[in-house]
């Protein structure tokens, strides 16, 4: 199942990955051969077969919707991992271009 360069570029964009030209060429071949292998699944008739998401007999594990305090050390550790921060807030670039706040 050959992929075109444009398809690889589209998938890379969906995946939020910058690729070099060389990488794009390599992935074009590799992704194509892997997709060809998994085509094998199309041989199986699954018309009446349900999907299996989770083999355990568990659905909807609920708990009360209450805020639980975070261990202060854990909280501090999480804050220390931020790439950019203002005090205890995570600083990120604007999500929508043109919007500054």
């Amino acid at each position, binding site marked *: 199942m050959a992929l075109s360069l444009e398809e690889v570029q589209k998938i890379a964009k969906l995946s939020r990955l910058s690729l070099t030209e060389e990488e794009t060429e390599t992935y074009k071949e590799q992704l194509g051969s892997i997709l060809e292998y998994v085509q094998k699944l199309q041989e199986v008739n699954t018309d009446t077969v349900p999907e299996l998401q989770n083999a355990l007999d568990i659905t909807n594990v609920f708990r009360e919707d209450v805020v639980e305090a975070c261990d202060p050390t854990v909280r501090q550790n999480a804050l220390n*991992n931020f790439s950019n921060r203002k005090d205890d807030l995570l600083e990120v670039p604007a999500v929508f271009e043109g919007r500054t706040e």
Partner: protein
Amino acid sequence: MDVSALTIKQAKDFLETKGGSSEALVSACLKRIEDQNENLNAVLDVSTTALEEARAIDQKRAKGESLGVLAGIPILVKDNILVQGWENKACSQILEGHRSAYNATAIQRLKDAGAILIGRTNMDEFGMGSSTENSHFGPTKNPWDTKKIPGGSSGGSAAAVAAGFAPVALGSDTGGSIRQPSSMCGTVGFKPTYGRVSRYGLMALTSSFDTIGPITRTVEDAALVMQVMEGKDPKDGTSVEIPETTIPQLMDPSLEGLTIGIPKEYFLDGMDEEIRRLVMNSVSVLEAAGAKTVEISMPHTTYALATYYVLLFCEASSNLGRYDGLRFGYHSSGKNLFDTYLQTRGEGFGPEVKRRIMLGSYGLSAGYYDAYYRKALKVRTLIKRDFDEAFKHVDAIVTPTSPSIAWNLGEKFADPLTMYLSDIYTITANLATVPAVSIPCGFSQDLPVGMQLMGRPFDEHTLYRIGMAYQNATDWHTRTPNT
């Protein structure tokens, strides 16, 4: 003291009845790592507080305080399992600078039981690989032959136990990542039933397959570590309440009354004949211990690899969306948020991870979702039904763990699909969410070979029983490499 072939049971005996100290035990492990890790690259770094923790346990013991079942026992941890304060990176550049904020539940339970966490082990980046060559920190070498790969993705953990760095190392298993390297390094690798051990604090690869389990020398040791880690955890909605394990019951050396299935789809023409011979020899050992064996058929096995990889790609691409360069780890600033994502992820992820993320994005994208993701979920049902049907007639299933012995470093690195095929015997247990264990069963060309046992969901007991009976009758697990 010599820790090169030490089991947990022996270490406990040393501490509990022979007056030995955890300090001596931990020092000996750290010394061995210091002397030999340079050749193997199995351990990424060692804990700077391990000796202090060991001495604290020794003091408690001296005072006669009550101690947990693993008090003073050294343990290594795969780099994708969080230990508070450790620089866990899942061997990815994208987690550069990351420090774990909290302990995984399995880790917390081990600490509560007194285990001494002595270091982080090497792995394929985020568990994506079967040879530990996809690590940002370089490949791990097989202790039996340093020109060979150790298997993967928990290759650092398996190589470390084989090399006598510690009696136990934790691994994670999404499609064989505990069992396949155990097979190739001559260790016991135990993958529990999905849900038995909390996944909280395990970096997610494929959330519906991921499990944490121990790599040890003996099945008995694996059971001991499982007892400490297992059980329901409110922080993992898919963990389940399980009946208490009763190890003494497992000591029954006879396998009378058990039926073990040999699935013909796992012993096809063209397979490695030496591996077939060694596994079938092991079957004879199980028969001599009283087990009945019977050939069975699991007709959808041929579709397992494609099913597994489609589901893995899709779930992984979603799970790895969290690595945005903002909240933790590597950050590469672009001219806007979108470019920051592109750059951070393009620079931070390794080639195999990018490959799988893209395949997953493709399989989940509009127009392809039904043909890939949904189709694979349906075939997964058929594979699960094969297991349900088999377990109506048998108590366990025996297969090889890996289709080959350890191959040369670099040999399959350029060809992802060939690499994927090395998981062919192990992935079905994850698809069907059954427990499975790899046990050393001989040597081919002086390299270890593993036999795999799979059991009914949550029937780890039967695997312990069969595994212990096998290890009582054989001595493969006592062999050590000349490192």
